[in-house]
């Protein structure tokens, strides 16, 4: 067997040559750092730092959004689920794609027309209430941090496979180095530098995925039925891997858990703060619409590639070798690359995966720091009287704090499935953010009370249900003595909510609370503000322009 991991005795826990992987990765880091520094410009005004001067074109921003969205969870996670569970991984990727239509049709243009930098801007324009801005900021920060920790945890798991670092301390150091690099991009590059890093990363990710996909297809004689046939033949489950149900179909609870995940994926994309913030980097609503159409192409074609990669790994590497490798399912694509193209292709795939984590982490950090500086510091604490240079300074300091929190969180969350954590972040985003965005834009009666009920209700119910779910405690495991939940002691069990993903309960609840809080509000909504919102949203009057503000 050519694979080092297939030999349990001599297993060095790595495949390929770590030195080569490291060299390719270092090359990428140097190139992107140069890009970030040279693209950065001065980054003095808030428009420069938060929105990259608003002069990216639709296609540039569309590819950058794709770069922000296609995290390691997508690249390694989804292909890994397909390699191990077959069709059910494909169901995941469809949810991740279809959610973009909601962004395109309902959110992108009105958001670009009515906000400046953040989601809270839009809700604030409509409701003009400091507590609502604070609530929107709290939910933005929660979702960003959750997503950020998921990415950092993935970084830790990856290094053990790709760089041959198997000691705990060594992995922790790599997580910290990822954090430092990302901080450098964000502090020096601002939104402009970060956007260019995303564009470069998305391009090499797409190229890497396309080359590997074609390679797999060529092995199968460019015939999809033949690839599927080989994959099913090499799996112990046989033809069952080509249909749904292996991962999510065993019990009724599993089935509802999957529906809950599907709801969260479709409604979550339109509530992700780091995606929404990217819509402000283009000059107008028309370019925002174009960006999202570009993103849909990038994301959709990429997920079609992961289908081939996943079944290719099932066929050529085999489920047994994937499960035995460090990182489990996440190692399917690296192992496939090694099988096809040896150490060089593995090195490239490893560098792409690292680049992905680095870039997504940078995008999340700039979003969270902008949210704190713009919404909390300038909007709530200083009552919008802060100087722009002061706001940018606060954003930079916040980035350091958030980077530190993410590194520490990533070290502790190491080993949790990345795609799964991201699914939870989507559920929180869909519950806490989306109802208020949609009500602000389209419902004339919506009031500040409704917004507070919906944001806090959605946030508390989604996070609360996760805490009382089998994710945190009480999951029985095949081994028996150790629970597969976060709390590994099987005697501690406070999981009264049976589903892993809270979306099916918390998202409708947040919409309902927004409605209830509004209709029971004694103060009626201000019709003038709704008129202003709608006229601005649909015509672009008064929208923020490109260039200096």
């Amino acid at each position: 067997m050519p694979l080092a991991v297939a030999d349990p005795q001599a297993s060095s826990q790595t495949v390929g040559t770590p030195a080569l992987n490291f060299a390719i990765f270092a090359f990428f880091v140097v190139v992107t750092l140069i890009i970030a520094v040279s693209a950065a410009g001065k980054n003095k005004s808030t428009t420069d730092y938060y929105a990259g001067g608003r002069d990216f074109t639709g296609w540039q921003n569309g590819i950058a959004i794709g770069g922000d969205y296609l995290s390691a969870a997508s690249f390694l996670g989804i292909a890994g689920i397909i390699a191990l569970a077959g069709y059910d991984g494909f169901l995941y990727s469809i949810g991740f794609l279809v959610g973009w239509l909601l962004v395109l049709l309902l959110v992108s243009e009105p958001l670009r027309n009515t906000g400046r930098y953040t989601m809270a801007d839009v809700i604030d324009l409509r409701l003009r209430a400091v507590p609502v801005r604070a609530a929107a900021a709290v939910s933005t920060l929660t979702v960003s941090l959750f997503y950020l920790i998921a990415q950092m945890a993935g970084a830790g798991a990856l290094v053990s496979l790709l760089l041959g670092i198997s000691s705990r301390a060594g992995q922790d150091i790599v997580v910290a180095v990822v954090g430092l690099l990302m901080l450098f991009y964000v502090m020096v590059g601002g939104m402009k530098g970060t956007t260019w890093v995303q564009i470069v990363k998305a391009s090499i990710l797409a190229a890497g995925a396309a080359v590997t996909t074609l390679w797999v297809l060529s092995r199968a004689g460019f015939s999809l039925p033949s690839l599927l046939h080989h994959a099913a033949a090499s799996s112990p489950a046989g033809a069952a891997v080509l249909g749904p149900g292996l991962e999510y179909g065993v019990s009724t609870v599993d089935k509802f858990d999957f529906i809950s995940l599907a709801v969260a994926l479709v409604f979550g994309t339109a509530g992700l703060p780091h995606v929404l913030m990217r819509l402000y980097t283009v000059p107008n609503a028309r370019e925002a619409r174009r960006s999202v159409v570009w993103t849909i192409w990038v994301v959709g074609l990429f997920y079609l590639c992961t289908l081939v990669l996943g079944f290719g790994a099932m066929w050529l590497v085999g489920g047994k070798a994937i499960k035995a490798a460090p990182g489990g399912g996440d190692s399917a694509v690296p192992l496939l690359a090694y099988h096809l193209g040896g150490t060089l292709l593995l090195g490239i795939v490893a560098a792409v995966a690292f680049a992905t984590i680095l870039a997504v982490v940078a995008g999340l950090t700039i979003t969270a720091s902008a949210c704190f500086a713009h919404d909390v510091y300038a909007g709530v604490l200083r009552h919008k009287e802060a100087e722009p240079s002061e706001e940018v300074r606060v954003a930079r300091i916040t980035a350091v704090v958030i980077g530190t929190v993410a590194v520490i969180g990533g070290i502790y969350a190491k080993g949790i499935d990345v795609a799964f954590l991201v699914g939870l972040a989507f559920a929180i985003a869909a519950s806490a953010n989306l109802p208020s965005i949609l009500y602000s834009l389209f419902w004339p009666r919506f009031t500040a009370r409704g917004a507070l009920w919906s944001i806090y209700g959605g946030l508390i119910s989604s996070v609360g249900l996760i805490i009382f779910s089998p994710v945190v405690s009480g999951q029985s495991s095949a081994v028996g003595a150790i629970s597969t939940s976060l709390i590994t002691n099987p005697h501690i069990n406070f999981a009264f909510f049976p589903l892993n993903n809270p979306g099916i309960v918390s998202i409708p609840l947040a919409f309902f609370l927004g409605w209830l809080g509004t209709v029971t509000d004694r103060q009626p909504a201000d019709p003038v503000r709704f008129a202003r919102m709608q006229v601005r949203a649909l015509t672009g009057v008064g929208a923020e322009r490109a260039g200096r503000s």
Partner: protein
Amino acid sequence: MALFQPASKGASGTPAAQPARSGASGYETVRASRDFWTIRRRFESFIVPACATFLVWYFLFVIIAVFAPGFMRLDVFEDVNVGLCFGVLQFASTFAIALAYRRWAQRRLDPLSERLRQRLEAGRY
């Protein structure tokens, strides 16, 4: 920055000095206007059916996958089954709706909203 100031039309003094409330009431006039009503109706006439279609189509797919996996496993040709075709159709429909919306918005929506925006910014409302 040239922002829309509806209050400036008949008001004395600088627009910036106007109280926000009386300034914003111009937006209600615009919202009630026939031009704006046309834009709104047109926007809704595409967005509402498009959202309803893709959400129903997607959840139909999810529910069949979860509750009727046997149907998804039926082979269409060789090892390609109903589930795979259904899934690939979800990709195709997403691409199609996105392209149709971009095309439709550019031809049917942008000219109207552009014209109204220019009139508003010139203060003719």
